[in-house]
């Protein structure tokens, strides 16, 4: 296993990856507990757990910010990218191993900052979106938010530089671009988005702290500023950010589905050049769908309604590719595959319920209600988390050299899956009926109390299922049966090295044969 010091000062991409995993799962636990506290608070009308609305607002801030910035983005572009990409392209390590180690340290600084929220007296209560003027007049600590975002953003940019270089220059001989795993393409695309858009977010969050602490007026109309500039900058990053989450998570699902169906990826070039490239191309021109009710000019609201609806084309390609991969496959249903099929189901519901939200006029009613919260948990939050859990299960034997318990794995999946649908289906339903989001209390909507109670129960199920999974990993890593090199019978390159992979990954750098690709199962 190595000493603690070896782990902290490691430059091995696999260990860096595992450090990312441990940190992001810790962040998930913290943010998940916040979700449970919020659900507990909402069980009854009036105060349930706390009589202070600010306490709820801090939980909600921490839940949103930590889930996105501390859990999903680092787990997907930190852990999976680090662990899998060098193995998938046949490299010995990443291009800049020390930069890589530095980025994981920065990531830990970032989540420590985020968790400081609970230990300072003036915890931020500004929501993960931090809209001014509230974020510039609150007594909550806006600077903590600014620095958390800057540090985590910086860590991610270092990762981006590193992985673009690695894939461009360190592929094994014979590993052509069209033989890359879908996951590799997806992650590259996500990093391209991070490199382009993170600086915009950095600017936005820096300027709110300038406004608040240095007295500038970028977003203050009294000083000639404009409150909407912030929202435009913020969503100019944060819409692409949902693809920074979506792309790697669908990439993980592709790997799982191809392996457990032992089948080629359906229409690989459509998925890569139509789906992934298309999403990158459109990602920068749809942000106004987050500003449909802010009184932006009509022409841009209508224009971006059309671009937003057109996202269905590349996203449709990725879904068709996934479903098509099942066609004539040989499908088995171990835990990773259950999670992958779960993602497909959740993403289908989440994606389709996004279509009403693309339509400007329907949004005049739906915006900022629980419908939106239900929709994005389906499409991104829970679908992404299922993909992360499925992916950890899938590569677990390679990472630890041991097997987990299949029975506990499946049990955990079904419990979470049931809870998810209870919580987020009900959420969308009461949202359409008018329940607004970010409400500490719903005294004037007593008709929703029953629904809120069901959601709290469902959330407890979700928590139980995820806890079972994490427990399963811990026990499996310590006492599981020894895993063979390639337990699933996958063609993908990372399974061809020994388990667990040695430092440097290969005894001899693999040479890629002409007829091989990571999905070449059918024997002609």
């Amino acid at each position, binding site marked *: 296993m190595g000493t603690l010091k070896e782990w902290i000062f490691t430059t091995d991409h696999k260990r860096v990856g595992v450090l990312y995993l441990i940190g992001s799962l810790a962040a998930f636990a913290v943010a998940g507990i916040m979700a449970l506290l919020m659900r507990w608070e909402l069980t009854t009308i009036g105060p349930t757990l706390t009589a202070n609305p600010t306490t709820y607002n801090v939980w909600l801030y921490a839940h949103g910010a930590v889930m996105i910035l501390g859990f999903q983005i680092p787990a997907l572009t930190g852990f999976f990218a680090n662990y899998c990409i060098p193995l998938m392209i046949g490299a010995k390590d990443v291009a800049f191993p020390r930069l890589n180690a530095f980025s994981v340290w920065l990531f830990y600084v970032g989540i420590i900052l985020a968790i400081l929220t609970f230990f300072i007296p003036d915890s931020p209560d500004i929501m993960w979106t931090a809209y001014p003027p509230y974020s510039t007049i609150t007594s909550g600590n806006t600077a903590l938010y600014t620095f958390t975002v800057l540090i985590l953003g910086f860590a991610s940019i270092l990762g981006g530089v590193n992985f673009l270089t690695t894939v461009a220059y360190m592929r094994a001989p014979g590993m052509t671009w069209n033989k890359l795993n879908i996951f590799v393409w997806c992650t590259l695309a996500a990093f391209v988005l991070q490199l382009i858009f993170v600086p915009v977010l950095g600017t936005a969050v820096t300027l709110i702290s300038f406004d608040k602490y240095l007295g500038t007026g970028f977003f203050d109309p009294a000083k000639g500023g404009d409150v909407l500039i912030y929202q435009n900058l913020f969503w100019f990053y944060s819409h692409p950010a949902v693809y920074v989450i979506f792309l790697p998570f669908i990439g993980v699902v592709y790997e799982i589905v191809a392996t457990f169906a032992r089948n080629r990826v359906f229409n690989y070039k459509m998925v890569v050049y139509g789906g992934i490239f298309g999403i990158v191309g459109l990602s920068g021109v749809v942000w106004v769908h987050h500003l449909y009710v802010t009184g932006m000019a009509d022409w841009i609201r209508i224009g971006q309604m059309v671009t937003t609806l057109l996202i269905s084309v590349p996203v449709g390609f990725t879904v068709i590719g996934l479903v098509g991969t099942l066609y004539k496959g040989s499908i*088995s249903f171990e835990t990773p595959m259950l999670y992958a099929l779960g993602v497909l*189901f959740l993403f289908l519901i989440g994606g389709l319920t996004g279509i*009403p939200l693309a339509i400007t006029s329907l949004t005049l009613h739906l915006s900022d209600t629980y419908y939106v919260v239900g929709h994005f948990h389906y499409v991104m939050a829970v679908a992404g988390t299922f993909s992360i859990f499925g992916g950890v299960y899938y590569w677990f034997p390679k990472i630890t050299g041991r097997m987990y318990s299949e029975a506990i794995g499946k049990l955990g999946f079904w419990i979470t899956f049931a809870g998810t649908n209870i919580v987020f289906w009900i959420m969308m339903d009461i949202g359409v009926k008018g329940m607004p989001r970010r409400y500490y209390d719903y005294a004037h909507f007593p008709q929703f109390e029953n629904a809120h109670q069901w959601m709290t129960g469902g959330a407890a199920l979700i928590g139980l299922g995820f806890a079972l999974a994490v427990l399963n990993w811990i026990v499996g890593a310590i006492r599981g049966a020894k895993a063979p090199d390639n337990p699933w019978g996958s063609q993908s390159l990372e399974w061809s090295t020994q388990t667990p992979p040695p430092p440097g990954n290969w005894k001899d750098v693999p040479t890629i044969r002409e007829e091989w690709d990571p999905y070449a199962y059918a024997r002609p």
Partner: protein
Amino acid sequence: MRNRPIVAAAFAAMASAAHAADVIRDPAAGWDYLWYEVLVDISILGIAFALITAFFVIRYRRRAENEVGKAGRLTAAAAVGWTVIPMFVFMADDFFLAANGWQLWNTYRQPPANRIEIKLESGMYSWDYTYPNGVQTQNVLKVPAGKPVLLRMTSRDTIHSHFIPDFRVKEDSMPGRVTYLWFYPQKPGEHIVTCAEYCGIMHSYMIGKVVVVPEAEFTAWYEQEERKLAGGAGQPKKAGA
């Protein structure tokens, strides 16, 4: 020409639609209609995908341990076909929905001429309305049935959003900008107003109501408040909760 009656009926429908142009279209009714239409649309897509997936999962389950998938590579023509055809299907649906969405949008953004126009200033944590004659109310918006109501909105502190779920409409109010929304109350009754943009600690308690009363009752109230204003100390007086 067996089709004549159908053509004639179509023309008649178009003609009456043209006449209906000066009839006020209710955005809330339009919303309900479009919502229903979109639900049908996405349900068809969802069920189709779910059924195909379920079929594949059952039909192609693994039957022997060493079995592998049998799908071959697509020919170039099939690969292009499988890209271009879904693309056109999705785009057709997108443009169909966009066209419907835009039409309803025009209803929402083009308030009728015979409207009553009321100013709204939001603040932490109240809705302050000012009527054309200077009468002011707080958290209670009294309006006559049968008349379109337009709110011109701004905010004195943070961003709020004036959401009336029953009328299917909201729009943010914010400092430094003026925004508007309109709705069409047709029957007397009360409707909740609730804040839909996180504006501070008491966000979830920022409520009010729209009270729709018969036209005559409204006029009586309106004139009485106006007289109070004129007779009072010159200070606008707040009525309501």
